[in-house]
């Protein structure tokens, strides 16, 4: 029983981890609270739904969907955030603009697709049994895909020049040009990659339970909680944070019933904000950084 709960939690956590990693990539490097990340997520799954009906081969569906999702993320940055950065607008103004972008995208989707859930996978899910644990095929694929992606991300961040540049950008945006890459391009790549991760998460989740317009907000908020728990400025630790959130939610549903899932998640957030705002892996900010 416990193991099943744990596994369910991990599967949910994997989805959150993808979303959270994408969000962290964007926030840590550009300091943009990309609320619209949740809308990008939702866009991806609905586009997938539409393109699936075109009768093209599966790999084309995935490619087109993820490419469009990456493009959406980059466009939001280009059209909405970058002009604000040029004007040196405050972070709060950027957050509010992001909120505006979220509202626009989600409602356009609602206008086109309506409010009901869409089923992506009409066939009945084959399930697999491992001892006492039951998993659907999609869930298995989710875990496998996520493991591959996380390994790739960790390697990307540690070994590649882009990864080093991204980490440098988190610490000091001025350094980026010194490292040889054009800051604008790094920004575009970060938004593209972050949005693609959200897109993958949305598709995997959609194949499991269908596409619903609220799922983006749920995944985004859980992802945000994961980022706070791991610590702002952290990348790989965010995966652990997300898994923790997923597992906690799973146990909370079992212990308190599904209706209290949000309360538990956000109590966790508030606890961390109050007791350990730097997160599990983060560094404590010095007062001098503010007062200097």
């Amino acid at each position, binding site marked *: 029983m416990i193991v099943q709960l744990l596994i369910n939690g991990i599967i949910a956590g994997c989805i959150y981890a993808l979303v959270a990693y994408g969000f962290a990539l964007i926030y840590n490097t550009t300091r943009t609270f990309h609320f619209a990340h949740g809308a990008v997520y939702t866009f991806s799954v609905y586009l997938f739904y539409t393109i699936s009906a075109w009768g093209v081969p599966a790999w084309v569906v995935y490619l087109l969907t993820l490419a469009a999702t990456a493009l959406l993320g980059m466009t939001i940055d280009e059209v909405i955030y970058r002009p604000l950065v040029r004007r040196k607008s405050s972070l709060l103004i950027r957050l509010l603009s992001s909120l505006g972008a979220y509202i626009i995208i989600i409602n356009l989707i609602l206008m086109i697709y309506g409010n009901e859930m869409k089923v992506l996978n009409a066939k009945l899910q084959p399930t697999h049994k491992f001892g006492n644990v039951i998993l659907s095929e999609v869930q298995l694929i989710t875990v496998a895909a996520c493991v591959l992606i996380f390994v790739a991300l960790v390697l990307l961040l540690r070994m590649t020049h882009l990864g080093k540049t991204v980490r440098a950008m988190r610490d000091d945006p001025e350094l980026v040009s010194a490292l040889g890459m054009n800051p604008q391009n790094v920004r575009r790549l970060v938004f593209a990659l972050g949005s693609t991760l959200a897109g993958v998460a949305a598709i995997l989740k959609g194949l499991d339970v269908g596409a619903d317009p609220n799922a983006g907000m749920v995944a985004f908020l859980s992802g945000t909680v994961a980022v706070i728990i791991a610590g702002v400025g952290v990348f790989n630790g965010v995966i652990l944070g997300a898994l923790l959130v997923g597992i906690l939610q799973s146990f909370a549903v079992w212990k308190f019933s599904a209706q209290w899932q949000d309360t538990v998640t956000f109590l966790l957030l508030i606890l961390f904000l109050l007791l350990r705002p730097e997160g599990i892996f983060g560094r404590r900010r*010095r*007062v*001098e950084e*503010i*007062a*200097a």
Partner: protein
Amino acid sequence: MSKLELQNVTKAFGGVLAVDGASLAFDEGKVSALIGPNGAGKTTIFNLISGLLCPTEGDVYYDGKKISGFAPWRVSQAGVGRLFQDVRVFDRLTVRDNVSMAFKGQKGESAIMSIIKRWQVSREEKELRGRVEELLESVGLAGREDELAVDLSYGQQKLLALARLLAAEMDVLLLDEPTAGVNPRMVDKILELVRKVVAGGKTVIIIEHNMNVVREHVDVAFFMNEGRVAFSGEPNAVLAAPQVKTAYLRM
């Protein structure tokens, strides 16, 4: 005991000692200066005094009482005010409001009082207007009450910040580079204000890089290097000391 004293104060950040066993004493009616190369710990000393930082070792005393570890509002309510290096005026408030908010003991600062005792608060406000005008006159900003602070020049903003400190009736004024980035006429005005304030019995401590200012206007200088007070005393003597000279040459 002096008005403000630091006794053997150390501040460590991880492995780095920003301040290392520093002892300083500041007296009333005198202008004291912290001088030294960048990174010597001067601003850290100010942060330790004003409560933005807590000493790792040692204590800060004000009027003989320990204030190390006090929250910033307690330190400032006790009478220690600060002019920041980046001035920090309230940009989108008028010059008048910048000064008005600094006065102590305003009844209207309680939301409830501002409603229940509205007439009293109105009267208080009228009286404060007069005081604001006097203060602005004394710093040379007369007639600019209704301008936004962000529209003033850098030097004028410094004068405004000084007016604020005077309005708050601070007994100790920590001035971080008061003459930096300001044209010579303003520098004179600022220094004239400092002299007036000190003549009134206040304690002024400045962080200063302009050695002429230090020579001509400072009573006691503390030369800091690498977190320690290397030399202190009469400014000309301090500046003539060989280790001070070499430290500056090395800069």
